[in-house]
């Protein structure tokens, strides 16, 4: 269990992490999602006592990180695959970590075996590929057999086989009742692994919701219609009792899967249709829309492709914690 309360980090004027309050529960994979620069890594570093919070508090199993006796036995973290001395062998890298926390050296062999690096244990880490470095970092996280595991962007730069391996590892660790907290900037990746979602943007909490809820709220299916005779079409659909949302000059959208019915209605009334297409809003779009206002580095090309007609990105302000709820109400 990791608990954050009003966690804040300021660098001069810039607020990197803004009053974050949430907790990470055991037995599930919690995804920590946000665009680049949202403050994910800073938050994780504060959890590990590496960065000092400007305000607020973070506790691991009720204790401050630096109060933990042998912290690797409580929480294992992969922060950066390259956070190791390249001249040291994989075995010695893990051995020095193990010794500092009173972990027997036999455990080093075990975790090397778990991550599949036994054959290169005596090799220097600088010769490792990104994937191997990532595996070594994960071996370090697993070293103390901790109840809490934290991974910062673990799939970055991995090949499909490595990604598959990490996904299954995280699920297996959660299934053993451990707390698994994993950050990513890819919604699609989280959709495959996480049971719970914490979304931040510009350091603020945007959502704290279960993955199932998030999918239910966001996998909106609708029909997109383009017609030169838009006004007449609107009347026809309206009198047929179909709710229509106007999206753009020529485009209309209708929630639900009513494409056949709309096509038949248009034919009856001799209306020209240029497009009649069932659409599915992706989770990625939903995520981008959620964070659109908080993305730090915009590519100025019209912003995120938003499924038009959906409620506007939530306005800022409500108290943290209720943010996700407010957002969910807005969507339903």
């Amino acid at each position, binding site marked *: 269990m990791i608990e954050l309360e009003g966690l804040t980090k300021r660098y001069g004027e810039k607020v990197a992490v803004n009053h974050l309050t949430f907790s990470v529960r055991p037995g599930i994979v919690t995804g920590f999602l946000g665009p680049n620069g949202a403050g994910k890594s800073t938050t994780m570093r504060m959890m590990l006592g590496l960065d000092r919070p400007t305000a607020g508090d973070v506790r691991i199993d009720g204790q401050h990180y630096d109060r933990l006796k042998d912290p*690797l036995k409580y929480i294992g973290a992969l922060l950066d695959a390259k956070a190791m001395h390249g001249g040291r062998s994989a075995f010695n890298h893990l051995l020095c970590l193990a010794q500092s926390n009173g972990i027997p050296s036999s455990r080093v062999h075990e975790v090397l075996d778990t991550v599949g690096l036994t054959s290169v244990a005596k090799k220097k880490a600088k010769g490792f590929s990104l994937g191997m470095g990532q595996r070594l970092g994960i071996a370090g996280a697993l070293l103390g057999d901790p109840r809490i595991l934290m991974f910062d962007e673990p799939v970055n730069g991995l090949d499909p086989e490595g990604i598959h391996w990490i996904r299954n590892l995280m699920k297996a660790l959660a299934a053993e009742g451990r707390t698994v907290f994993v950050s990513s900037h890819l919604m699609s990746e989280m959709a495959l692994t996480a049971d719970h979602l914490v979304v931040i943007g510009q350091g603020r909490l945007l959502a704290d919701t279960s993955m199932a809820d998030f999918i239910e709220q966001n996998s909106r299916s609708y029909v997109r219609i383009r017609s030169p005779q838009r006004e007449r079409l609107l009347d026809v659909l309206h009198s047929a009792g179909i709710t229509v949302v106007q999206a753009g000059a020529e485009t209309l959208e209708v929630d639900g899967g009513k494409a056949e019915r709309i096509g038949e209605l248009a034919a009856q009334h001799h209306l020209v249709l240029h497009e009649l297409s069932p659409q599915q809003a992706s989770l990625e779009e939903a995520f981008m829309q959620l964070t659109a206002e908080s993305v730090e580095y915009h590519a100025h090309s019209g912003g995120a492709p938003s499924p038009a007609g959906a409620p506007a990105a939530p306005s800022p302000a409500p108290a943290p914690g209720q943010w996700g709820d407010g957002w969910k109400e807005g969507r339903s």
Partner: protein
Amino acid sequence: MTAAQVIRSEWTKIRSVASTVWTLGLAAVVTIALGALISLLLKNQWSDLSEKDRLSFDPTYTSFAGMSLGQLAMIVFGVLVVSNEYSTGMIRTSLAAVPQRGTFLASKLVVAAGLAFVVGVVTSFAAFFLGQAMLGDHSTSIGDPGVLRAVIGGALYMTLIALFSMGVASMLRSPMLSLGILMPFFFLISNILGAVSATKKIGRYLPDQAGSKIMQVVTPIDNDTPYGPWGGLAIMVAWVAAALLGGYVLLKRRDA
């Protein structure tokens, strides 16, 4: 978490990187070989020396002539032991494993200083005996007054140089910046300040000049240095303590 665990861990760290071997090896080889070479040259040119030079000739200090160059390798050792953590990113992994930063730094210092002292003792004795063998008729013996103190002092000097470098590297974090300041300081600036008469009085309070007094047995004739061998070492210890305190305070306060 106990200090013993962290010390074991730091020992594993220091023995498992190549830079430890080559920096300490170079410090020993350069100090010993250069000391022996200069001792041999002096013996061969004895007849050319002035009367004054002969009177104030210090066979012990002469055999330590390689120290001025050998200490540069010791500086590299001290800087790399600390700054490697930062330049490789290992520091985040290290501090996540050992969040008590005071214990972390102290353990690192104990291990590195212990190792530097062992290398220093071996180097110092080897440089002395080899140097004396080269000096032949002009040599001194380990049993003469002040000689053993000077030889053990040589080992202490090397250890303190390494510790000072570790303190500076703890403050600056970057290996290039640390070496870029320490190398010219010890190799050039300190020597220049010590040689120019106007700055001599300041120069002799610099860590290396004060500290190297411990390796002298014969006091130069026109000596007006206001401290003795142990006084000089104490001045050097004060510099080292200041550097380490600065390193500790910054490590404690900074984000990793």
